[in-house]
């Protein structure tokens, strides 16, 4: 495995600090390595494919290479001759299913379960195969958007590693084998069910809940236990601060000032997609709309919500209670909740000033909203509730409903206690993977193994059954494993965060002999062969008063069930026995670091660890793929490695915590709070697939091995030491860098003092080569001068002449894209959406380290400000579709050409793989198939391929096409409908009718074109990406391109990109320094 040269060098951190402090004006940097400006880094950027050189160090001799090359050429000559298509067959239907038209897509409204909550989706089906997930615009938790997990869930359906048959002790068995064992045992439980246990995750499904009720009644004494790695411990759940469990909902459109206390509401909340849309809707600054909300964030680790903050306060987790208490005190909430002011430790002057400003801003704002993270203790939630009450937010921006997910009757801990006491003899595990994700102090895995292997004579004494999509760690500890149906192949129902219920409808019959949890419950209720649809229909038929069949079809069509959203609760009483605040006065440091556990941005809690799309998705900020790492900030890197040789990405540290220890690599993440180590869950898995392991070894480290049930989210007292070893990590942070020609580095331009003396670079040249890829302004600056962004444009001041004839674009449709950087939250949904739509392969960790990842759109992170407290900007970069595209002129075979609609086209079957185009692309958006990355062979995987897009083979260049397949299909649909109307007009007798029909034709055409969305645009939660026809002045994209904040990347090269950007606006408080306070 190659060592990533970018990772492996040391960082002159003190020098970087010094240079940043001396910088002139804002400086934007993608990584610390870039800031270091070392020769090694420059060299790696200057090479177009930096890792290519190593290939030629292989033991293969030069002579052998030439021999193979000659033989390949000779063979190529033979295979290239007279290619005849293989004789194919056409197999039509026997009876064409209703509404199916071969070649046209069908959408079905269904819902994807995520940690028990449903998010509405529209799943696209082509000839019976589900191909793509889109959000359901009518569903409250989606509003039309789909996150990376939803997009990637389609790959899970076709995962070749899924369980295919019922298994007994790892051997193939049948459903009737299982029933032969299960049914007699259930018979004995009818009179006394004690010993019979169910273990489930969080459940909101109305049908499943009623089935469980029936189960508990049918087998008296049986118990249902619940465990969800995201919802522990039960007693401290935020919903329990009230006398009855209540969920708190938020309306971000109703808030001018927003404060989040540890809540990453943009990504980890069941309503994240909705909240992200609402939050960004309050921030879209346009020339005629000069208003935006203001976001204050208090957090420890770096989250996407924190990256969107106008002011961010990075504090250790143990300080949250203190800061919340202070804030409450300043807003006049005292008495029993906040201890006397003198007993609350005081804060540093800057932090006190920060809180003072926030408190004043909250009080003076017309509307506001305060939200606390689900991982915060009840004391913080109670205080946040009081502050919201004080600020009159309840009922305006903050709502309460009866908790959607009923509280668990019994916990995992109860179950393990009972198992230890011998009170359990039959255990059914409905999904999930508790043997892997249970807290380390609850020995569930070993108890489960005991239970499964205890024998009475020759027979097993107990019965353990696991239902799961994969034979995971839990399955291996059970006697029986039943394949679980994917949500796209089973009937079910589920509630969203606000209670809205949806029917889950299948698009395809189960690929394997699998059962859904609803079907398994029916088996336990003595209906072993009942189809899932019957259970769901029976359940809802009881509550529907109108004609059921009509209701059923309407509900399936809409994707939500009318009248199921939970009613608002007005009677809010806090529990009197809530624990008070407790304050820590210790300052964290490596000997006593604070530890954070969070779901991983790509593997989540472990359930997506076998999804290759997600594994190869660069995680926000760190841009790490295929692994997880411990995030530490720059100061801790210095503390651990010494200021002369601070730790770099991949250095392995040992974490000792509560008598347990773990070794894992670190990534350096500027902006994290001091003395904090941030761990992500979901890695270190051992069973359940070929993607989640690397040659048999688990990928990443398993943070569950340190996670306790008492402190599942944050704790103090972790000891961190450097082991002296390093491991290669696949980090894409420095890949595909723009604007960094050696000596012409924008970083260096900003760090003028030592570079201005460089020979051959005049100040004028420096200015010319500082391309200002990221452009930002505050709302105030923009209000004062709308040209503030355009004034940064050097191309307008120094126009270069183009050698090429300009294209003529005065006809037809002209495509363009606008990306709003104020709206982009860096969530990665677009990357996976693009991957699903365009058959983009994964390449694996080793290839990512060689900079060969294939994503057509990447999200660059730019930091600005000091390394200890930077601000972050997200910039999605797809192909720019330049009007003067540098790639086109250098292609020797005309494989990349220009279309008259302004597309930069790629014709794969012409490409011979010279890679000149990629070399000449200033934006580095072209991707080359160095090997045969596409999967042509897996019998299930290839079912997912989009039939409208070529699956690329080895040796072919590819890149963003603006989803040309969608463009073509939409254009054809538009022409069809418009021409039909025009023909009607031609044949109409009355001139008035003719005129009306012609107008209708034009309008229809415009509507259809306006409805065209690229895959990235469609999935974007915040509508940051807008695509459309530039020639229609009314189109959304044309309007955005007229904005004064519109600018193009590297336009001084006269590339005339069709993709342009709207600058990032922030809305800092005049009394506070912008960015992070650490």
């Amino acid at each position, binding site marked *: 495995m190659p060592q990533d040269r970018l990772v492996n060098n040391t960082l002159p951190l003190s020098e970087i600090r010094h240079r940043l402090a001396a910088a002139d004006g804002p400086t934007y940097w993608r990584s610390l390595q870039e800031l270091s400006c070392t020769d090694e880094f420059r060299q790696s950027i200057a090479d177009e494919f930096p890792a290519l050189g190593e290939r030629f160090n292989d033991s293969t001799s030069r002579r052998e290479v030439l021999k193979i090359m000659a033989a390949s050429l000779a063979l190529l000559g033979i295979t290239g001759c007279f290619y005849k298509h293989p004789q194919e*067959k056409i197999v*039509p*239907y026997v009876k064409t299913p209703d509404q199916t038209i071969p070649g046209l897509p069908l959408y079905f409204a269904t819902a994807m379960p995520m940690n028990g909550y449903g998010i509405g989706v529209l799943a696209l089906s082509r000839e019976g195969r589900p191909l793509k997930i889109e959000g359901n615009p009518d569903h409250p938790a989606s509003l039309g958007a789909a996150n990376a997990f939803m997009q990637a869930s389609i790959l899970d359906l076709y995962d070749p590693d899924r369980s295919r048959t019922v298994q007994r002790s790892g051997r193939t068995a049948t459903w009737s084998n299982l029933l032969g064992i299960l049914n007699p045992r259930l018979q004995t439980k009818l009179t006394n069910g004690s010993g019979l246990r169910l273990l489930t995750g969080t459940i909101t499904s109305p049908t499943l809940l009623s089935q469980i009720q029936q189960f508990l009644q049918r087998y008296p004494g049986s118990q249902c236990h619940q465990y969800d790695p995201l919802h522990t411990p039960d007693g401290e759940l935020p919903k329990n601060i009230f006398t009855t469990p209540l969920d708190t909902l938020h309306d971000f459109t109703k808030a001018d000032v927003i404060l989040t206390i540890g809540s990453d509401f943009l990504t980890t909340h069941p309503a994240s997609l909705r909240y992200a849309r609402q939050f960004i809707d309050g921030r879209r600054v346009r020339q005629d709309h000069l208003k935006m909300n203001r976001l204050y964030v208090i957090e420890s680790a770096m989250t996407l919500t924190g990256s969107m903050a106008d002011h961010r306060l990075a504090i250790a987790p143990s300080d949250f209670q203190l800061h919340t208490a202070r804030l409450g005190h300043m807003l006049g909430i005292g008495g029993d909740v906040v201890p006397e002011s003198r007993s609350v430790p005081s804060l540093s002057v800057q932090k006190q000033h920060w809180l003072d400003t926030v408190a004043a801003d909250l009080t003076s704002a017309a509307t506001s909203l305060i939200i606390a993270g689900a991982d915060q203790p009840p004391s913080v939630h109670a205080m946040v509730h009081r502050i919201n009450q004080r600020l009159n937010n309840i009922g305006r921006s903050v709502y309460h409903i009866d908790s959607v997910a009923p509280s668990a009757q019994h916990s995992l801990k109860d179950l393990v206690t009972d198992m230890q006491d011998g009170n359990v003899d039959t255990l059914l595990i409905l999904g999930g993977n508790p043997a892997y994700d249970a807290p380390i102090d609850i020995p569930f895995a070993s108890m489960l193994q005991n239970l499964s292997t205890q024998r009475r004579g020759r027979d097993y004494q107990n019965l353990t059954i696991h239902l799961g999509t994969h034979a995971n760690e839990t399955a291996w500890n059970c006697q029986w494993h039943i394949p679980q149906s994917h949500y796209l192949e089973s009937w079910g129902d589920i509630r969203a965060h606000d209670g809205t219920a949806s029917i889950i409808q299948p698009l395809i019959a189960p690929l394997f002999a699998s059962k859904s949890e609803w079907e398994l419950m029916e088996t336990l209720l003595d209906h072993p062969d009942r189809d899932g649809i019957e259970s769901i229909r029976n359940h809802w038929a009881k509550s529907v008063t109108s004609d059921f069949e009509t209701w059923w079809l309407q509900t399936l069509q809409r994707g939500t069930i009318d009248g199921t959203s939970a009613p608002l609760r007005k009677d809010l009483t806090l529990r009197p026995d809530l624990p008070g605040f407790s304050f820590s006065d210790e300052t964290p440091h490596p000997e006593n670091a604070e530890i954070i556990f969070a779901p991983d941005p790509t593997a989540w809690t472990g359930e997506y660890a076998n999804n290759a799309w997600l594994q190869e998705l660069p995680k926000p900020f760190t841009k790490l793929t295929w692994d997880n790492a411990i995030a530490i900030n720059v100061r801790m890197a210095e503390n651990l490695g010494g200021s002369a040789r601070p730790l770099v990405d991949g250095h392995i540290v040992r974490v000792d915590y509560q008598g347990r220890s773990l070794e894992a690599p670190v990534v350096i993440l500027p902006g994290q709070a001091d003395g904090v180590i941030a761990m992500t869950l979901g890695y270190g898995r051992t069973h359940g697939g070929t993607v989640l392991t690397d040659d048999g070894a688990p990928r990443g480290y398993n943070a569950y091995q340190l996670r306790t049930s008492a402190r599942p989210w944050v704790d103090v007292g972790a000891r961190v030491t450097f082991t002296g070893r390093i491991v290669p990590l696949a980090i894409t942070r420095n890949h595909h860098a723009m604007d960094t020609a050696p000596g012409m580095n924008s970083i260096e331009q900003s760090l003028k003092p030592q570079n201005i003396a460089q020979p051959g670079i005049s100040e004028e040249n420096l200015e010319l080569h500082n391309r200002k890829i990221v452009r930002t302004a505050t709302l105030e600056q923009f209000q004062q001068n709308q040209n503030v962004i355009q004034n940064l444009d050097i191309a307008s001041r120094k126009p270069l002449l183009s050698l090429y004839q300009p294209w003529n674009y005065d006809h037809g449709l002209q495509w363009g894209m606008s990306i709003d950087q104020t709206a982009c939250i860096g969530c990665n949904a677009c990357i996976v959406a693009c991957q699903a739509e365009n058959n983009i392969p994964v390449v694996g960790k080793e290839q990512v380290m060689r900079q060969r990842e294939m994503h057509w759109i990447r999200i660059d992170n730019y930091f600005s400000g000091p390394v200890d407290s930077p601000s972050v900007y997200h910039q999605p970069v797809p192909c720019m579709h330049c009007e003067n595209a540098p790639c086109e002129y250098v292609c020797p075979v005309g494989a990349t050409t220009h*279309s008259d609609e302004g597309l930069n086209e790629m014709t794969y079957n012409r490409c011979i793989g010279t890679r000149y185009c990629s070399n000449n692309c200033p934006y580095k958006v072209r991707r080359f198939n160095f090997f045969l990355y596409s999967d042509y062979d897996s019998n299930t995987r290839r079912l997912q391929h989009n039939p409208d897009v*070529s699956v690329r083979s080895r040796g072919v260049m590819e890149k963003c096409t603006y989803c040309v397949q969608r463009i*073509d299909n939409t254009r054809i649909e538009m022409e069809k409908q418009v021409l039909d109307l025009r023909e009607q007009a031609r044949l109409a007798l009355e001139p008035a009718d003719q005129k009306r029909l012609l107008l209708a034709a034009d309008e229809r055409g415009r509507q259809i074109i306006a409805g065209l969305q690229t895959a990235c645009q469609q999935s974007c939660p915040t509508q940051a990406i807008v695509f459309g026809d530039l020639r229609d002045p009314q189109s959304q994209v044309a309007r955005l391109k007229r904005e004064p904040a519109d600018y193009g990347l590297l336009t001084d090269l006269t590339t005339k990109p069709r993709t342009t950007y709207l600058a990032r606006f922030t809305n800092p408080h005049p009394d506070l320094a912008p960015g992070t306070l650490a």
Partner: protein
Amino acid sequence: MAYVFHPLTNTIAKAGVFVAVLLIGGVVWVAAEIERSPWVSDAGVHRNQPIPFSHEHHVRGLGIDCRYCHNSVTESASAGMPSTQVCMTCHSKIWTNAAVLEPLRQSWETGTPIAWQRVHNLPDYVYFNHAAHITKGVGCTTCHGQVDRMPLMLQAAALNMEWCLTCHREPARFLREREDIFQPDYQLPPNQMELGSQLAKRYDLLPPQLMQNCSLCHR
């Protein structure tokens, strides 16, 4: 010093140059002709089908419209192959005992689809759309030939890119009135060029250079 080469060598060498050029040219010409020939393109080749379906009988003899069986041709990229059910609308009533229709009855009874031999097969990197062509006034027989004279279906044209471009470069040579699109025995009128250019305007055809954009067919 004696001459190393025979005096004739110069002549042979000069002639050799011409022979070599002719030879290479000839090889290229032969290769190009083979590439265009029915041997490669399969044009004019009959295929044995599970049921010897005759378009001549059904179209010319019975006058069944193209769209009765190929019913998605105006809507979708795919023209659509008739399901067994479509065949059975008639054949459950007529020719119910015909031996050649045994596979059809088998399919209907067992629910197993009929596997027809594909006659028109474009490479996978070509995205042809039937509906788009119908919308713009390209008749069925322009590409598929006189189907009503084909007792067994065969591919009438070469279906190579050169052939596609003859129309994409100069569509006026082939366009028809809308009502004539499905005429199986349609003959181009003498004033085709005039009619074609009128129709091109009326059907709002993309400008010729756009009709040759790569991404129109390759993606």
